[in-house]
């Protein structure tokens, strides 16, 4: 049961556009999702799905010509802390950054709600890194090559925690290195002296420096080898157990997400097309794109069968197909698909948690919702019916 208490971040109807001289590109359209405390939310998508833009939008790191044209990003911080009191509490924020949140009998709750899109830059700076940290793609190249790793961690501490003395900063830096599994003598190492995996760990240490509530990771392991990737992911999960933060994990590798995330949202052409728990998505993906994506990864075990990916390629966001953006590639597309945009709704009444944006599950257009086997058969027919590859 999801209670209101459990929600950490709520994104509502977010729209991000890129205003170019030759037209507007809708990078993110009408995206809504919820992030609960301590959970890992996976955002899967290919190029042009808008997932990176979404990550930047949440942290308000977008620059012109990208603009957030509408939507809300609501953050529900914890009021009290039972850990070290070095964290900046919400009550330090200037008044006009908060909105009262009335519940129940008309009393204002202890937890306030903050709309990140409404914050001024000063308030934003208070939130950033304290509550919300982001690890970028190829972040290991984001380390300053002329500063030691320790200096960079302490730099972050000095900026956000001016009350900390030099000694306690160093202490905290050592703590953080130990936390991510880097030997403490590496405090004085330069980034080029560390391997790719260690640099990525250093970046994660910097991200966790102020014990944030939310960690956004944009393809953090794409540039790493598979063994190091596995180590980093294990590390993240262990840290999550220990520190209790939530993670938004963005990647194109769906098979990785299925091992890692609690909930998965699949994005296509700027919209979310399916949201489900890890188990639901693995056992019965509802959206034809989710099914196709899931079955684009050759398996390590199981029978060796001929697989076909999804025909066509991800759409150019300047030319998104009408109606459902996936319809040109969909093996199950039917007459209403190019005409009407599907909205996210529960696939089956029995499982309201799994929502999908597909007309196949809309009783107005399609009598019987398909089972996973039906989707499988449709893809098979596509693979065999075409004379190509």
């Amino acid at each position: 049961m999801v209670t209101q208490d459990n929600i950490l971040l709520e994104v509502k109807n977010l729209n991000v556009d890129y205003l170019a001289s030759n037209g507007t590109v809708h990078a993110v359209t009408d995206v809504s999702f919820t992030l609960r405390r301590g959970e890992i939310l996976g955002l899967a998508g290919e190029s042009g799905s808008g997932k990176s833009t979404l990550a930047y939008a949440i942290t308000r790191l977008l620059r012109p010509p990208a603009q957030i044209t509408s939507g809300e990003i609501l953050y529900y911080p914890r009021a009290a802390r039972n850990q070290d009191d070095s964290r900046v509490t919400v009550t330090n924020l200037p008044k006009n950054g908060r909105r009262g949140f009335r519940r129940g009998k008309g009393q204002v709750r202890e937890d306030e709600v903050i709309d990140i899109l409404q914050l001024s830059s000063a308030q934003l700076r208070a939130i950033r890194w304290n509550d919300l940290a982001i690890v970028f793609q190829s972040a290991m190249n984001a380390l300053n090559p002329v500063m030691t790793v320790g200096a960079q961690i302490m730099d972050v501490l000095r900026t956000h925690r001016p009350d900390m003395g030099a000694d306690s900063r160093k202490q905290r830096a050592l703590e953080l290195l130990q936390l991510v599994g880097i030997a403490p003598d590496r405090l004085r190492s330069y980034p080029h002296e560390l391997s790719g995996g260690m640099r990525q760990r250093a970046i994660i240490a910097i991200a966790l420096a102020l014990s944030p509530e939310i960690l956004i990771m944009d393809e953090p392991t794409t540039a790493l080898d598979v063994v190091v990737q596995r180590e980093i992911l294990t590390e993240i999960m262990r840290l999550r157990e220990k520190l209790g933060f939530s993670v938004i994990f963005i990647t194109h590798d769906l098979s990785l997400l299925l091992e890692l995330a609690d909930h998965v949202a699949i994005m296509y052409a700027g919209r979310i097309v399916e949201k489900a728990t890890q188990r639901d998505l693995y056992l019965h993906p509802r959206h034809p794109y989710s099914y196709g994506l899931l079955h684009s990864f050759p398996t390590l075990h199981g029978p060796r069968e001929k697989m076909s990916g999804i025909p066509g390629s991800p759409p150019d966001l300047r030319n998104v197909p009408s109606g459902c953006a996936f319809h040109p590639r969909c093996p199950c597309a039917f007459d209403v698909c190019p005409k009407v945009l599907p909205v996210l709704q529960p696939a089956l009444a029995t499982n309201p948690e799994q929502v999908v944006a597909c007309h196949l599950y809309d009783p107005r257009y399609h009598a019987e919702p398909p089972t996973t086997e039906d989707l499988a058969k449709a893809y098979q027919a596509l693979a065999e019916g075409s004379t190509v590859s």
Partner: protein
Amino acid sequence: MKQLDSTITPIDSDSSSQPILEAEHLRKHFPLRNANPFGQKKFVHAVEDASIALYPGRATALVGESGSGKTTVARMLAGLYAPTSGTIRFRGQPVRLLDRAVLSKYRRHVQLILQDPFSSLNPVHDVRYHLARPLRIHRHVRNKAEETEQILSLLNRVNLSPAEQFIQKYPHQLSGGQRQRISIARALAVQPQVLLADEPVSMLDVSIRLDVLNLLLRLKEEEHLALLFITHDIASARYFAEDTFVMYAGQMVEGGPSDEVIQRPKHPYTQLLISAAPDPERFSAEGSKTSLTARGEIPSLINPPTGCRFHPRCPHAMPVCSERFPKRTDLGGGRWTHCFLYGNGDDKTEKTDTKS
């Protein structure tokens, strides 16, 4: 679903097919520029003693992480690097690739496909130019009309239809998958017998990778090509290739039929790779609980560990492992490995394998 050919004959038993391209004991050391010209010369020991054989109509996968030397092996086979030592044999005859004339003839038979579709095509030239050059260089066409005809047929073979539309496009007007198909077409224009594909789908979107892989498989069937498939993704190696070779830090560690190597890995490094690969079937209710079978990082290739380069990380390391590199041990059924756990390589006794 159509089953892939599961009755793959191991190579030894099929005596009628000879390897079309063979490399033996290839070694490549890249010299490093020293700050001190009188000091000891330093080298990057990229490849040590790699041997590989490619057969017509068969795909072979070369799997490894970064620094394993797989790309260097491919480039040596393509004639882009000269091996420091070792022989390359084409159709049984050794080829001296330093000789310009020999190299030029060799390139007619062996072609390379590169990893990055975004930089392997020259942005100032259109598709016609890219495909016409190999036709012209290797003199497959005599005039403009023939050239156009061949180009259109090439585009059709890689499923870029309608071909007339593509012929005038520039690379920036094409998607990643289309560009990679153009690279494949360019390699095919030469009419080679061997295709070396260096991570051909790593930089493509997930949903189109299978399309390109299936295209390569189809071309392999139709033209009876020998394919070398280099990848870091061991699952796609299993899907794509009949044989898989595993490399670590410049050394070959294991090889054999793909399914065998992946389902029952013998070498500790192969076991590590398999344990690290994402596998959704493994998840439990609380998330992934897989643990790696070894820790540590890939060693530096400038001062690599002595003997077997995996020994610092190997859970089964023995003193002999740091002394010398184990010779090849045949494990039967076309499988072999370089590991002291299975023998010294000088005798054919098979030890019982450790827990896989």
